[in-house]
């Protein structure tokens, strides 16, 4: 007996069956449109940042907006890059370091920080969404608090939920507390390389409550019994050009008070070693990346709230700080280590209050390294 190929139907499932030429047309059209749509969208969606603008808290993961913001910063404006210390966790948008640096120098500074960042994510942000920072003056803030214990340094093996997972290195260096499966990692690695996908995230962040459009139409209101407010509703966007007023930030906010009002005792921080620190490794890569792309870089290290640290912690901090400054010197990167601020100008271990930012700006402006850098 010999085998015979079965004659079963294969093409009658209503599938859209394209020839090679039709495939080429479809792919060309699809990818052409996908790349054109974000560009066209900028004409449709107004974005006119207010004075002392920063990316709104609600849109912290909207990296397409961040890129758009960087693109709008004029070349002569100095970008201040960093985490929530630069962004201003406790202050209003006009109470941040960039605003006071502008006041103190008479030169324009832009807040290019994002809330919730840390060096591992900051590296990803600049690497994939910070091309506009090349060949410009950049003030990069180094927050050593991320190296103050293994958990903050993301070294613990226990799974941890953290902000901006799409920005961290997905495969190397390995982050022990990051447990995304391989699909998620690949999707995230791809998203930050393809602009249309970043734009899709922008739409999701801005119009669909951080969900895809279909998920948004099905979302409940989180109450019991649940209601489904979006079933028949059209999306309404979050304002991009200015923040919504928030009771959580600014001089009148309840959170805007010295750290000692909440915490009396001193903290013990374990500190990791510079050789083993993932965050410090990421920061070094970030600084090298910025310098390599032709940015005129100045690193501001700290200040941390030393008033909160006990003696043992302070000692370890100084060791780490020495290693940081040594590395910056070796790399030829200009840096400033400002004097610590008064205790009542810190809201917590690293974030200054509005008056702290003002004092910090004045101290920076008085620093000879800063002056030289600014004069260039």
């Amino acid at each position: 007996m010999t085998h015979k190929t079965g004659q079963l139907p294969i093409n009658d499932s209503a599938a859209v069956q394209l020839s090679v030429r039709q495939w080429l047309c479809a792919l060309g059209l699809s990818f052409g449109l996908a790349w054109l749509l974000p560009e066209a969208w900028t004409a449709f969606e107004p974005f006119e940042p207010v004075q002392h603008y920063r990316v709104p808290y609600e849109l912290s993961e909207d990296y397409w907006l961040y890129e758009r913001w960087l693109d709008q910063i004029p070349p002569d404006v100095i970008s201040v890059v960093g985490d929530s210390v630069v962004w201003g966790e406790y202050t209003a948008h006009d109470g941040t370091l960039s605003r006071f640096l502008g006041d103190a120098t008479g030169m324009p500074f832009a807040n290019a920080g994002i809330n919730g960042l840390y060096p591992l994510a900051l590296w990803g942000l600049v690497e994939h969404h910070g091309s506009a920072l090349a060949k410009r003056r950049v003030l990069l803030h180094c927050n050593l608090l991320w190296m103050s214990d293994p958990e903050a340094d993301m070294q613990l093996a226990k799974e941890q939920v953290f902000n901006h997972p799409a920005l961290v290195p997905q495969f190397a260096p390995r982050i022990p507390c990051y447990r995304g499966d391989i699909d998620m990692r690949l999707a995230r690695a791809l998203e930050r390389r393809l602009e249309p996908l970043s734009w899709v995230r922008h739409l999701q962040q801005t119009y669909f409550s951080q969900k895809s459009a279909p998920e948004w139409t099905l979302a409940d209101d989180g109450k019991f019994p649940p209601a489904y407010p979006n079933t028949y509703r059209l999306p309404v966007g979050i304002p991009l050009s200015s923040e919504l007023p928030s009771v959580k930030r600014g001089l009148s906010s309840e959170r805007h008070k010295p750290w000692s009002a909440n915490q009396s005792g001193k903290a013990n921080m374990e500190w990791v070693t510079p050789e083993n620190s993932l965050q410090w490794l990421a920061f070094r890569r970030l600084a090298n990346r910025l310098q390599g792309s032709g940015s005129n870089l100045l690193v501001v290290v700290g200040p941390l709230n030393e008033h909160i640290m006990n003696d043992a912690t302070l000692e370890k901090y100084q060791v780490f700080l020495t290693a940081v400054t040594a590395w910056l010197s070796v790399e030829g990167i200009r840096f400033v280590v400002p004097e610590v601020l008064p205790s009542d100008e810190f809201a917590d271990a690293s974030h200054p209050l509005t008056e702290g930012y003002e004092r910090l700006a004045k101290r920076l402006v008085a620093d000879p390294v800063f002056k030289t850098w600014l004069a260039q």
Partner: protein
Amino acid sequence: MLFHTWTFFIFFIVTIVVFWALRPTRFWLHWILLASAVFYGWWHPYYLLLVFYSTALDYFIVSWMERGPRLAKLGWRFSASVVVLVGAVVVGLMAPGGWGGLAAAVGFFAVVLAVGHWLCSRRAWLWVSIINNLSVLVFFKYAGFAIENLNTLLARLGAGQLPSAESLMPPGWEYVLPVGISFYTFQSMSYTIDFYRGIIAREPSFVRFAAFVTFFPQLVAGPIERAKNLLPQFSKTPRVTLADVSDGASLFLVGLFKKVVLANYLGPYVDRVYGDVATQGGAALALATFAFGWQIYFDFSGYTDMARGVARCMGFRLMLNFRNPYLAVSLADFWSRWHISLSTWFRDYVYIPLGGSRVGRIKLWRNLLITFVVSGLWHGAAWTFLIWGMLHGLGLIANRGLEQAAWWRDRCPRLAKRLVVFAFVCFAWVFFRAESLGQAVEILQRIFTTGWTDPRMPLLLLLLVVSVWVYQFVYESPLRSWLEKPPVKVGLAVVMILWMLLFAPGGGEPFIYFQF
């Protein structure tokens, strides 16, 4: 590994590039086998043991079968075999240290094989194959259900309880349903049965036969291929043309769209309504049932399209498994369009051996009912699946009666017939989707007795489903040529690609049919 994940994308790129490179050599078949093992082992490496057992068993059984006479007198030897078999299982179960289950299984399979050699006829080997394959399937799929029901009965009689299926697993081994076991078991069994019937020749190469059973595109959710279709394709170096690749990519695109955009959008709505039946109104329950009908269609046919697309890119042609089932004008028509590879399997290996349609009316009804009840149970070990199968069996009997009435056959518009069939299929889906019989009855009660409440079904979702339905209507109408115009096809492909890019939710939801 799911088709709609990046992991599969990378796996497929590597697999197909190496496959194309190896085609001029004889190692392309080994490569397919290796790729299939990686694909399947990705879920759980121990699944590989089962699929390897099933494959090796049927391969060797057919070679032993080839040597034996077609029939042999059994007489007392059959009774003796049954006694030894039962004895081996009982002795095995008494093994200490939690190894009783494994010892009983090993004893059972060893005796079954020994009996096969002792009886040494084609028919005996056929039964050895069927018993072996079904035993594995029954243990992993139905043991829990059977033991639970038997224990309920024993408790009522005041008798002792049977051990749970989990307790029969070796220490440290988890009792989980191996993905796709129903699919590859049926595929492997069909080879043995077809050989016994003289439909196909014995496959001399183990690698080729193993590649046929484990071929990764269709291993976990079909189509359940027949040896006479797929094995010959593995006998010669596959010719892959550009047209194959474009056709395969087209099938994959449509399947991906069905799964990622449609099924994954419908799923959460269905889960929401079916997850809280007591507070839902009739409209929501009816719409959720309608949505489930489409969800399972998009999910399963999407998988099949992707499987066929992947195979096609490698030059292989898998059988059609779905043909617009919700356009069926009768239930018989529905089953010639829905999960075609399974319905034809049951037709060829259950319905026809029972006598098929060439018997009296009562026997015909019996044959239909048996076939569909077994088909229902194939889908899962629960009373709801059994009732679902039975409903389809009864529906087919009623439909045959209707077809004999002139008003239905000649005067009833096709559209009306289609809607009636669709409504019946949706009615049966209630049992398929419900968690229990009680919940199914409650859903039906509420659909017909509660007043109007807003079903809160997103309009976008409804619009998408209706668009696909209209597309299918047009596809099976004289306007079909319009859909086949190049600009329309390109336009549809662009819409699908952009929709997936812009609106598809993240997350790799598993396919519904993997659980079967």
